[in-house]
């Protein structure tokens, strides 16, 4: 191998290292920001909303509707036309999730605390 080869190898190594650092940096950056409310219907994400901004979201799923309210750092389902209305009766939550099984609707609070891998309950 001659000198030019060494330089080329050096460049490749440096570029790879930079790429690696960049990727990791990006992953870490993702963890910043306030708590969010993630709403999904079936396998699709319907939307994400900041938990600290009051909001009312009316979701029309193919099985029926749910009206989700974000209010003073809590989330609840104000109204829904599912048969058990269990999502409505769950009341306000500040962590974890509300699930409307008949509508395949999942409302999850994504915690600031990224250290949590799962919630048992």
């Amino acid at each position, binding site marked *: 191998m001659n000198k030019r*080869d060494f330089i080329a190898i050096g460049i490749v190594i440096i570029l790879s290292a930079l790429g*690696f650092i960049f990727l990791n940096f990006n992953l870490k950056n993702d963890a910043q920001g306030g708590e969010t409310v993630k709403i999904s219907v079936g*396998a699709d994400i319907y939307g994400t909303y900041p938990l600290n901004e009051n909001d009312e979201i009316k979701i029309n799923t193919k099985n029926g509707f749910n009206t989700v309210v974000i209010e003073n750092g809590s989330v609840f389902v104000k109204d829904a036309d599912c048969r058990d209305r269990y999502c409505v009766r769950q009341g*306000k939550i500040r*962590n974890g999730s509300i699930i409307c099984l008949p509508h395949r609707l999942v409302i999850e609070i994504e915690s600031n605390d990224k250290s949590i*891998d*799962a919630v048992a309950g």
Partner: protein
Amino acid sequence: MKKVLALTFIMIIFLSGCSFGSYSYSDSFFAMDTYMSVTANGANAQSAVKKAKKQVLRLENLLSAHKEKSEVYRLNKNGSEKLSNDTIKVIKNALKFSRLTNGAFNPAMLPVTKLWGFPDKKYRVPKKSEIENALKLAKPEKISVNKNEVTLNLKGEEIDLGAIAKGYTSSKIIEIFKREGIESGIVNLGGNVQTLGAKPDGSLWTVAIENPDKNSEYLGKLKIKDKAVVTSGGYERNFTKNGKMYHHILNPENGYPAENGLSSVTVISEDGTLSDALSTSLFVMGKNGAERFYKKSEKDFDIILYTEGGKLTVSQGIADSFNSQLDFDIVKKD
């Protein structure tokens, strides 16, 4: 220059090898009347998760008491059926835990839960006489297993494996992961959490324990590996009639929702089936009963008890891995 190209190529392979090493695959879906998430880490993660999901759907179609054509549904209808290995295993486990907990775990309560309307969500408060009659059918000791054939010996007797099926399923998923060469993974079957190994970076998993009052902080956070964490409580499913709340965990002794001051029970062990079955049983036993059971049991498990008064108790085996903003007592083995 050719050499350089070759080396670059090797470098690319090496780097992609790195990212394969930290490859993670997740899927979330609805099954068994709940929302499930399955995550595997490792080269084979995608195939492992796909197989896991298939297994969940297969088990649901065997074990659900409410799905027509399921094995359990057929057994309940006909009183006697030849069943597949998995169903036999779950039934045998259910009967074992029924004996082990002195009846606090009872897989034959379906005639009673039906009276309350829990399966079809048409809730009502049954008359005392109705409950007493249905309780006469809730006799696990009248269930016989002969090789692959199960017989419900009382006319009208019906089983429901709902209090153990998810735990069995999460254990089964961990088995699939292992067979697929996965060394790190986590499954959450509607709040039944089970972990395989540690996280890809070698650190422990953090599992938060839900507060029955969902509008406040988690009860605490557990650091674990290779453990199943299952929480049971009346807050999970209930209805209110004339200002009184009725929840779904019935006391097999009297057929009414178990009311003994407990708000939730969490059981931590290496076995998903055991964690699932015992969390329900200990909830039925109440705080004193649960502590007594824990102290005397030869089984290897830990508990977190939370009372309606807001008192938190944790068993000695996990006291150091549990972190909470609340004060907690520690219960020790005898």
